[in-house]
């Protein structure tokens, strides 16, 4: 059990490129923290710095209050699951799991080793595979062996480096659940690196979003989703991602390429005095007008649009609406696309409609948008001008409470 304190950590390579730039993050005992970001954002490097496989250029790393910058990986007492599992191919599953306990550093008597290996293998459903070699196992089984090897050490913390990225989609879902349950059961501090936002949102108590080596925002998944700190976080979290529309405030309205919106005062206030802002609207804040509750109507704006096409998915459908590109925001959006690892952000609004909606491509239809939940971003800095700090903090506080309750319930069940 341990806390991990990251203070102004910097990793600079020989050519001066900072892969991790001034990152500070406190990880509480038993917390599950996710490091997420597009490829090349420095998340894996940060993890390797924590475990000791990368040197720290500047800053301080403390585990349980003790500075470990200079400690070798073996002295930090952390367990890590590698992206390619890094199982020892010449050893059986049993010996792989027992490996850490047979080293001189944490040498245990053979009967204790046996007890721990059996416990881990039954926990992970590996009992009938103990004598097999890793080469004969499926991807999911290898993954579980790697987890087993991490568990038996009873290390201070778990570190995961994209552990599910080599599995197919279905297995990934199963393993995700298994990891989440295991972490709750063991109550062990965990740091998990991923580029997959579903993993980030479902697993994390708190999620740290990184871009180009810099920390953008650390918060509960819900705060990230509802109160993003900036354009990057807003665009990165959520699928399909948030729509960004150029907007101008004019006489109490927001003029956008898909129509004028009436908006609550705090939104207008944020946009006022600026020539141009970017309006962030999540797809699910749109709806086919026909399916909107009467009582909700005053909180939003009706729009007449002609979608290019729709996609019916069963539980919902997506409509796609093209709009005229605004050259003034083109540069900002292109840069955002690059940051997000995408080719471009097309001038297109994605809207989520009820699966019963009969809106179809090419036909002018009436939709409705909930303007209470839109965000306003500064074009130059990308800062979220409508972010409600207090509301956000409240969301994260609630997430922490929920988690505490979950752990207590789990502990009660165990007894």
């Amino acid at each position, binding site marked *: 059990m341990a806390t991990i304190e990251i203070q102004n950590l910097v990793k600079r390579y020989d050519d001066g490129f900072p892969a991790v730039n001034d990152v500070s993050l406190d990880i509480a005992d038993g917390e599950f923290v996710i490091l997420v970001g597009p490829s090349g954002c420095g998340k894996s490097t940060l993890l390797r710095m924590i*475990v*000791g*496989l990368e040197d720290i250029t500047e800053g301080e790393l403390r585990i349980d209050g003790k500075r470990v910058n200079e400690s*070798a*990986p*073996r002295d930090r*007492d*952390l*367990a*890590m699951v*590698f*992206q*390619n599992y*890094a199982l*020892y*191919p*010449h050893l059986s599953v049993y010996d792989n799991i027992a*490996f*850490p306990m047979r*080293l*001189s*550093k*944490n040498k245990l008597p053979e009967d204790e080793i046996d007890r721990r290996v059996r416990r881990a293998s039954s926990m992970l459903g590996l009992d009938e595979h103990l004598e097999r070699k890793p080469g004969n196992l499926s991807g999911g089984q290898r993954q579980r062996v790697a987890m087993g*090897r991490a568990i038996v*050490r009873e290390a201070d913390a778990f570190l995961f480096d994209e552990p599910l990225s080599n599995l197919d989609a279905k297995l990934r879902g199963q393993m995700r659940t298994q990891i989440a349950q295991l972490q709750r059961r063991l109550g062990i501090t965990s740091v998990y690196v991923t580029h997959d936002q579903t993993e980030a949102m479902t697993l994390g108590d708190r999620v740290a979003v990184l871009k180009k080596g810099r920390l953008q925002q650390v918060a509960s998944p819900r705060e990230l989703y509802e109160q993003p700190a900036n354009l990057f976080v807003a665009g990165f979290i959520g699928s399909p991602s948030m729509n960004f529309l150029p907007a101008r405030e004019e006489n109490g309205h927001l003029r956008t390429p898909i129509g004028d919106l009436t908006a609550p005062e705090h939104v207008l206030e944020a946009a006022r005095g600026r020539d141009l802002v970017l309006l962030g609207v999540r797809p699910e804040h749109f709806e086919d007008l026909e399916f909107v509750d009467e009582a909700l109507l005053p909180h939003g704006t009706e729009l007449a649009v002609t979608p290019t096409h729709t996609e019916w998915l069963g539980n919902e459908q997506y409509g796609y609406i093209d709009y005229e590109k605004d050259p003034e925001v083109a540069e900002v959006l292109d840069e955002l696309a690059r940051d997000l690892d995408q080719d471009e952000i097309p001038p297109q609004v994605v809207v989520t409609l009820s699966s019963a909606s009969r809106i179809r491509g090419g036909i002018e239809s009436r939709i409705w948008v909930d303007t209470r939940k839109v965000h306003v971003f500064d074009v130059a800095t990308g800062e979220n001008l409508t972010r409600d700090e207090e509301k956000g903090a409240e969301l994260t506080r609630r997430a922490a409470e929920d988690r505490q309750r979950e752990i207590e319930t789990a502990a009660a069940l165990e007894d």
Partner: protein
Amino acid sequence: MKGMTTRQKVGWSVITIVVLVYTLSPLVSILMTSFKASGDLTTGRFLPTRFVLDNYEQIFAGSARDLFLPALRNSIGITLIATVVAVVLATLCAYAIARLDFPGKRLVLVSALGVSMFPVISIVTPLFNLWRTIGLYDTWPGLIIPYLSLTLPISIYTLAAYFQQIPWDLERAAQVDGATSFEAFRKVIVPLALPGVFTTAIIAFFIAWNDFVYGISLTSTSAARPVPAALAFFTGASQFEEPTGAISAAAIIVTIPIVIIVVLFQRQIVSGLTQGAVKG
């Protein structure tokens, strides 16, 4: 051989037989000669008219005994020591080359390559003088050291290629698991590199075992003379008789260890030789 048509099968079989006949016929010829009686040697026939063991008797019990048996002992001893030393040194060196960044890494590789390029015959005379001065002439170490210069470069190259394809993450995982660098090397890297180490050991063994130039130049008595050199000193029963039969018998005897090694470690050699080539 699955998925081949009959024609392809026949074609491959023919090619295999041709290659086998081409490579094995000299060996069979030597084998046959070793069974010939001395009067039989000049008949020009492939098979002996009568199979006799005279030649084997001669090298193990007869006149060539004092020449052959010490030479066999020298060959086995010197070659084994040279192989073990070469493999141990090359393993450590190749590991460093594959895994660590240190100043002079290129120098080590280039000089290893340079040494192996150097023609043996050009070093042998200076070495002869040097060895006589410092007392290594006609001793086991006097041969082991030059053999290392032949076996080390190729061993380092083979093993470095082998180490390079072992995923680095395995070692990192071992370190995170709590292993010291040496433990990670011994418990993870060496077992994984074992096929490569075997292949290297066998190649090194062959090189040392087959050497003739150093063997004949740096020895003078049976104290250190290896078999290939000793063969040159065989004489017939009289000056009118060629020692061809005895030489053939000795040649067959020294081939046996090699055949045994290859048969025993066949699987390791094959996996060792192919694993370096194919990225798995």
